[in-house]
């Protein structure tokens, strides 16, 4: 038996999303089983199956070093705070500028 990862896409502009996994002896049976296990209640208009063995997966340790780099996160809050402060200063200054 092989393990397959199942991806479903609803009609329209939605992207393919991971739906789950299953075991099957070959590609054709995997399609048969995926139809029943993941799409029997019309959860998707398109379906991809990928053999898990064909997935190129990263080493989690390689990703771990990126977990603590706060300087790479910019959610705009620093700029927003600075602008808010400038507005408050301008108002306090009488708005003559």
């Amino acid at each position, binding site marked *: 038996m092989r393990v397959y990862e199942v991806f479903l896409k609803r009609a329209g502009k939605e992207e393919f999303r991971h739906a789950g996994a*299953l*075991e*099957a*002896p070959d590609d*054709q*049976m995997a399609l*048969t*089983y995926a*139809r*029943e*296990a993941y799409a*029997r209640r019309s959860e998707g208009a398109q379906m991809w199956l990928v053999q898990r063995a064909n997935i190129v997966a990263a080493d989690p340790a390689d990703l771990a070093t990126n977990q603590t780099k706060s300087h790479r996160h910019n959610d705009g809050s620093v700029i927003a705070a600075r602008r808010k402060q400038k507005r408050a200063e301008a108002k306090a200054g009488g708005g003559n500028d």
Partner: protein
Amino acid sequence: MAEMTDGAALSGKPAGLSPAATEYILAFADDEHMVGARHTTWIGLGPFLEEDLAFCSIAQDELGHAIALYTVVAESEGAAGEAGVDQLALLRAPDAYRSSWLAEWPCNDWAQAVVRHWLYDTAEALRWDAVAASTVPQLAAIVPGAQREEQFHTRHAAQFMAQVCTTAAAQIGTAIQELLPVAHTVWLPPVDEAAALAEGVATRSFAEMEQDWQALVEADLSKWGLPAALLRGQSASEQRQTDRTVRSPGFTPFHQDLVEVFSIDPAAVW
């Protein structure tokens, strides 16, 4: 299932089926009902999760076909809705059913259940084709939806059989031998088939379809490396079921199981 019943509801008024047409459709409906109900006994017991889901989904499809077919008959008798379907599906006396023993057979062994699935669905696909151009419009209307599902059922059966004929050829061979006495009963014609054919309920006789079926299942066996002769040696005339009015030995307790909950309160709304 909604898709299936919509077709039957197209007419809006009772079709006024002839007795032969009613017999013809009931023979199909009862086969679908019995095989679907027997399949469902495998819920939770399939050999692995994926197969369990697929097999029981197929069972549900067959029950959907049965509902659609019963609806055609019920509406023709002016008994629309669930009550009319329940009356036909559950509340008839055993000798009023018209199912084949192949559909009624318990198949408590997984190998038998799989072999029956393959034999029955190969036959079922031919039967839907034969009523695609039926002169009973309510019957013809449910064919396209059923055919789409049947395409999947026969594909599933062939895929699974191809696998197990490689890995468990002896068990499958034994199961075929065990089912041989009932295999051909699916081709026992409906009561008064000639009259139904004359009025165009179907376009092919059961005898014609049985020949096609025999060729198809033998071709399958050869493809899977099993001897085609496994399914020979027993013509319809040698069956223990002589016609569709005769029920199989295990039918009565099975029927009692089917109606057990319903009988507690037939007026209950679920």
